[in-house]
């Protein structure tokens, strides 16, 4: 296996360009690549499109992690399933400052997976007869209706792992897994933030969750 380059947070975030779409792993802050997000806030790259489960929990006194980038107005567009724990997102949406699109969680993750595995889309019953249906093709299969949902790719995925081996094979920790393995398949550039680095061969082939071939760069958590 080829060794992957281990780069600094600064190098990593310099690879993200104004206007990029950026997938960010995590679920209400659990399993979020916070060191990378901290670096991205430092450099201030903006006009980004965020693809993430949610917009994090805002601490209004001391915004950190993903909410800090939202307060900083670095996203012009957000594709998320839930914003209830970050009122600033709702405020920006209602004020027309940010284009926030709400996507059912199961549809969001399957759209990301769909892009990563080379499908052109999928049919789901989720969202039928609701506002989610708007603008989408409805397909009837033997009298049952489904929405056609399309794949969702990004320029960059920022994901968080517990352990990386030097080739980029990844292990996650409990519910910090969430969207991370799926996003690792579906972006042109995949940067993983890992808490621990081990030698190639240290991880049992049966236990690896994300294969090294999906990973471009490794950054160590600060």
């Amino acid at each position: 296996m080829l060794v992957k380059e281990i780069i600094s947070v600064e190098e990593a975030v310099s690879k993200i360009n104004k206007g990029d779409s950026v997938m960010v792993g995590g679920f209400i802050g659990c399993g979020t690549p916070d060191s990378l997000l901290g670096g991205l806030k430092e450099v201030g790259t903006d006009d980004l499109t965020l693809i993430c489960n949610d917009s994090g929990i805002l601490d209004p006194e001391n915004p950190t992690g993903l909410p800090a980038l939202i307060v900083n107005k670095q996203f012009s567009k957000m594709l998320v399933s839930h914003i209830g724990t970050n009122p600033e997102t709702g405020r920006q949406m209602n004020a027309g400052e940010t284009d926030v699109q709400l996507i059912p969680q199961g549809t969001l993750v399957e759209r990301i997976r769909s892009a990563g595995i080379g499908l052109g889309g999928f049919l789901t019953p989720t969202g039928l007869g609701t506002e989610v249906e708007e603008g989408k093709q409805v397909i009837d299969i033997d009298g049952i209706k489904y929405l056609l949902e399309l794949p969702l790719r990004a320029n960059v995925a920022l994901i968080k792992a517990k352990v990386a081996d030097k080739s980029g094979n990844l292990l996650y920790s409990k519910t910090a897994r969430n969207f991370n393995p799926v996003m690792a398949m579906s972006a042109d550039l995949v940067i993983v933030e890992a808490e621990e680095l081990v030698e190639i061969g240290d991880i049992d082939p049966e236990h690896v969750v994300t294969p090294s071939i999906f990973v471009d760069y490794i950054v160590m958590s600060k």
Partner: protein
Amino acid sequence: MEYVSNKTNIAKRIARFFESGSVVNLGIGLPTQVANYIPEGVTVVLQSENGFLGLGPAPEKGKEDKDLTNAGGQPVTILPGGMCFDSATSFGIIRGGHVDYTVLGVLEVDQKGNLANYKIPGKMVPGMGGAIDLVVGAKVVIAATLHFEKNGGTKLKRECSLPLTAREQVNYVVTDVGFFEIKDNKYILKEVFAPYTTDFVVEKTDADIEIADDCQQVEI
């Protein structure tokens, strides 16, 4: 008869729905409390849509694991025999009909089984999260809600006015005055909770209610 809201009774009654082996997803807020009242001898498997089966009680203070939370982001534990998975698998389980019961809070529910719980246009827009997939995918959908709004109106509507989370998917509504099945565009009152009476429920609820033949007043 005076109404005194009682969330605990809602949780207690819902906890009696399950059989041993049931796979159950409990929504954020009131539904989470259902776990505290599951009868002895009944073993259910709690699914948490952020990525595991075998949700256990909250950890002791100081023993929280930053990498182990429920779908509301709160620290929890995992029981022996539980397992972790990614979000695609989690919603595969949910949408694939492998969850027997989902229990959700509502903003509105109506007698067609429509449910609204993600958006009050222009005011509050938490988003639908995973609720929308849960409601479509779970075999049995239970809406958990106080019977009355703060202004005295009922949460049980004839027709939802808010944007829907899902259409015609709710099977049961459990409030703090009774337990209702939704059928044929009506609320069928199956149990009324002491001290309330069937008359009280019918009179105070602005919706079509039918009283089941075997409807009884029960102590929760």
